[in-house]
Structures are given as C-alpha cells and as structure tokens.
C-alpha cells in the first residue's frame, strides 16, 4: 500500500521540532522564537478545515482504524491545545523548581502569549494555571498561622514564582500579606522591647514566640525593601486589588515611622495620596475602604517633630 504523503504546507510540527532541538542545545532565545512560531502555526492549522482532511487521510493508515479515521482526526484536533498547554506548563514548573529562571520565563511567556490567541483562549487559562502554581508550591494565605521558618520558605517560594511571573495576582497578594505581617510583627516586637525596657520586667514569653519576634525584627529591613519593590512594579495596584495594595502601603508606612525613616514614610504617603486622592480623610485605616491619608499625615508630622 502506498503511503499518503503530507501536503507541503506550513507545518507546525516542523517548527515545533526545530524549537525542541534549540531547547535541547540550550539556545533559549532561538527555542522561544521557534515555540512562538510553532504555537501560532498550530493555532492557524487547528482552525483550517483542510487540516481535518489531512489528518483523516493519515489516520486511515493506522491498521484497523480506517472506519474511525474522521473521529480520530477530530479527537486529535480537540486534544492538541491541551497537550501543548500541558507540555509548556509542566516544563515551566520543572524549570521553576530547579531554579532555571530563563527557561521557566520562556515557557511562562509562551503560555501567556498563547492565551491571547483566539484558538487557545479556552485551553490556556492563565488564572487557573496561576492557582495551580500556588497550590503546588503550597503558597497559602494563612500567613498569621505560619511560624517564622515556614514563612521564610513560603516567601522564598513566592519570590521565585514572581521572578518568572510578576503578574501572578494570588502569589503577589500572599507575598504582600506575608511581608506586611512580618513588618507588623517587627513593629510589635520593637514596641514590646521598648515597653519592657521602660517599665522593667514583664512575664517572660514562650521561647517560640520570642524566636518568631526576633526573626521578624531581623528580616524586617529586607521585607520592607522587597515589599516596596513589589508595590512599585507597574500594574501592582491592579494585580493586588485596591484594599490589599493600600493595606501593604500602610504597613510599610508604619514600619518606616517606627524605624525613624521619615523620608521613606513621606514618600509612601505621597504615593498613597496620588493613588487614592478621593480617599483623603474619608476612610479609616483597616476599614476596607482605603487609606486615611489625613490621619497618616498627622502621624507623620508628629514623628517628624519628635525627630
């Protein structure tokens, strides 16, 4: 039996094959370009009615499957987007867990750009994939219940995800809350130590609680720096949502005040005023409605006078 040949058309599998070869030789830039071209070719190919006919002809070659050839071709067309997504997602995740950031970024970028193609919009749901990353990396929002060491690990894992996908809203939210909680603890611990020094001797705290406070104080400068960097990222307000965004600014503001970094606190206040001018004095902190900028300003003035 003569084997049917494939028609000489723009072939997504050939492009895909070349992209794999580039990835194998660690040429990430070339692999990325190849995968992108292949993805677009796949999207076009899957929408082309001629593809079904090609597949049907080819499926007839499988011994015993001639009668089901059309069904097989349709099944392949249905499942192909999921295979592509699954491959890039798993490759991204594997690279993420092995600290191979360039490769992880490449695969995530491909998932991101494929999600904007009409043919792949349904299969490449970025929100679901981001949730899956959170789940696999055990990034949970139960920050308050997390003790010092697991929280440090959680922050490390979260930072790694954000290096690859800075727009991952669930991870960014968890990270902002974790840094905020850490700054709050550092602030509380510093106040407690100050009070203890002033009144002389309080009931000793449990060793675990003391360890946690000490760890929070030691980590606070780094946490403030990182939190600020995340908040300054373009689009951070949209990614985080207004409440989380303002709450994180408030924690940062209080931290800068408690450590007498008045200029930094002033910058945070200015930024909050710029971001929510309508809230100037209308809402209280923690009310869920926004920042009480007037109150923040009063606190800042007092702190500046004390200095």
């Amino acid at each position, binding site marked *: 039996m003569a084997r049917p040949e494939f028609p000489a058309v723009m*072939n997504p599998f050939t492009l895909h094959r070349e992209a794999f*070869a580039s990835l194998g030789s660690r040429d990430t830039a070339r692999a990325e370009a190849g995968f992108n071209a292949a993805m677009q070719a796949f999207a076009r190919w899957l929408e082309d009615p001629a593809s079904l006919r090609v597949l049907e002809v080819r499926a007839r070659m499988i011994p015993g499957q001639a009668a089901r050839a059309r069904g097989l071709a349709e099944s392949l067309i249905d499942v192909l987007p999921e295979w592509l997504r699954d491959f890039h997602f798993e490759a991204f995740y594997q690279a993420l867990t092995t600290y191979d950031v360039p490769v992880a970024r490449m695969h995530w970028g491909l998932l991101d750009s494929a999600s904007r193609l009409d043919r792949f919009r349904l299969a490449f749901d970025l929100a679901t994939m981001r949730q899956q990353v959170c789940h696999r990396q055990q990034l949970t929002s139960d920050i308050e219940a997390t003790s010092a060491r697991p929280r440090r690990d959680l922050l490390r894992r979260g930072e790694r995800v954000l290096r690859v996908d800075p727009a991952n809203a669930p991870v960014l939210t968890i990270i902002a809350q974790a840094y905020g909680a850490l700054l709050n603890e550092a602030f509380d611990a510093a106040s407690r130590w100050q009070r203890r020094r002033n009144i002389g001797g309080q009931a000793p705290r449990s060793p675990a609680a003391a360890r946690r406070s000490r760890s929070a104080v030691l980590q606070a400068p780094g946490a403030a720096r990182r939190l600020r960097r995340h908040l300054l990222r373009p689009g951070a307000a949209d990614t985080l949502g207004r409440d989380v965004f303002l709450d994180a600014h408030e924690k940062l503001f209080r931290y800068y005040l408690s450590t007498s970094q008045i200029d930094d606190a002033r910058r945070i206040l200015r930024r909050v005023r710029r971001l929510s001018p309508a809230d100037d004095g209308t809402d209280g902190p923690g009310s869920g409605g926004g920042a009480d900028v007037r109150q923040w300003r009063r606190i800042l003035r007092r702190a500046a006078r004390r200095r």
Partner: protein
Amino acid sequence: VSTENPFRYMWDAGADPYRAHPFALLGVLPDATQATVEQFATAREQLLQAGEQPLAGLTLQRGDCLRAAQALQDPVLRLAFDLMAHWHDAALDT
C-alpha cells in the same frame, strides 16, 4: 484518548520527543500492525536486557520499548506521534 502527552514523551528522561518517539524507539513504519509493533518491542527489549542500547545518542531503560508499543495502541496518540515523526519529511512551501 490516552492521558499520555506526546510532547512530553521521554521528556522526563531528558530526551527530545521529536527524536525519541515510539516509531524511532521501535524502528517501525507508520502503517505497522500492532502485532508487528509488539514483535519489534519485544526484540528491542531483549537487546536492552542484554545490556545493549538499540539507538545511538539515547539511553533507554528496561520497559521503555514496551511502553512505546503501548503508546502506539492508542490511535489518537499514534496519529500524533505519526505527525511528529514523519511530517518533517515533506517540504515547506511557505
């Protein structure tokens, strides 16, 4: 449809799925019957058990060839592997 993903085939073993697809692993043609596929798989598996590697540049483990024969049992998966293995033979016009 099989849960196996052809693009991840042998991927965890560090192999390129466009090179290490079941047709290459077993050395069978696209129109081979399942009996032929299994016969080739058994022969290659015996080579592996004797400590030989049937393919240059690729280290196979015991069971890889039987797994390849199994993958070709699923017609949709087999169709995908066929495209991955053989379509590049055609010239590109555009």
